[in-house]
């Protein structure tokens, strides 16, 4: 495999990692209102993704992998909602530690990194086909 093909392989791993990241963002956003259902129980806890570089032995290049998600251990918020089943004796319920603004920013970053990796693939394919065009 030559280096231009390897560039595509690396960029593909980057795209895969960013897809996973977007999935985690979607989980966080979808569960932004998932409160506790029993008094004293925990609501949805925000998840975070961790990227890591890993050596691909077949090509000798460093790919990126998205490891398992970790949980954000920051404090939950409290809301006065006496009617919900998860409310405590004073009528407060724990709400998730998801900040939609942070999630949206994460989403934009995932989108832009994905597009950058896509551009790497497009450029490397363009360079290969331009080189082949020399034969014509």
């Amino acid at each position, binding site marked *: *495999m*030559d280096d231009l*093909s390897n560039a*595509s*392989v690396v960029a*593909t791993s980057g*795209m*895969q990692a960013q*897809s996973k990241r977007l999935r985690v963002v979607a989980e966080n956003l979808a569960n932004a209102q998932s409160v506790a259902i029993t008094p004293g129980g925990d609501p949805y806890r925000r998840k975070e993704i961790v990227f890591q570089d890993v050596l691909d032995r077949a090509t000798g290049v460093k790919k990126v992998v998205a490891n398992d998600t970790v949980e954000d251990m920051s404090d939950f918020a409290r809301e006065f909602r006496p009617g919900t089943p998860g409310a405590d004796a004073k009528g407060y319920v724990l709400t998730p530690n998801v900040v939609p603004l942070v999630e949206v920013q994460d989403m934009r970053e995932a989108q832009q990194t994905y597009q950058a990796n896509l551009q790497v*693939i497009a450029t490397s*394919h363009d360079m*290969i*086909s331009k080189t*082949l065009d020399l*034969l*014509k």
Partner: protein
Amino acid sequence: MSIAINAALSAYRTAAQSGGSRSSSSTFLDATGAASTGLSSTPASSFMDLVKQGLSSAVNTGKSAESMEVKGLAGQADMRDVVLAVANAEQALSTVVNVRDKVMSAYQEIMKMPI
């Protein structure tokens, strides 16, 4: 793909060498299987090897792309891996076709040459 390009380069080199020693036409006739004089078997086999090697590597890439497609349709493979495999197969095939076209046009140019 780099295998195909390296083989193409060596084929061009042998073609250039045989062009200098007046045996280029027999070389390419050997390659196409139309006639065999047995004067220069090495360049001929190298062109045959080039086409064979290139085609078989392209076919292998195509096969792996096909199996990726099947996996992708079954939901087992990542969509990006499928796209990359198909793009690689297309590139491998176009490399072989381009090299073959170029060598064949060089052969035809030589055949058109008035003696």
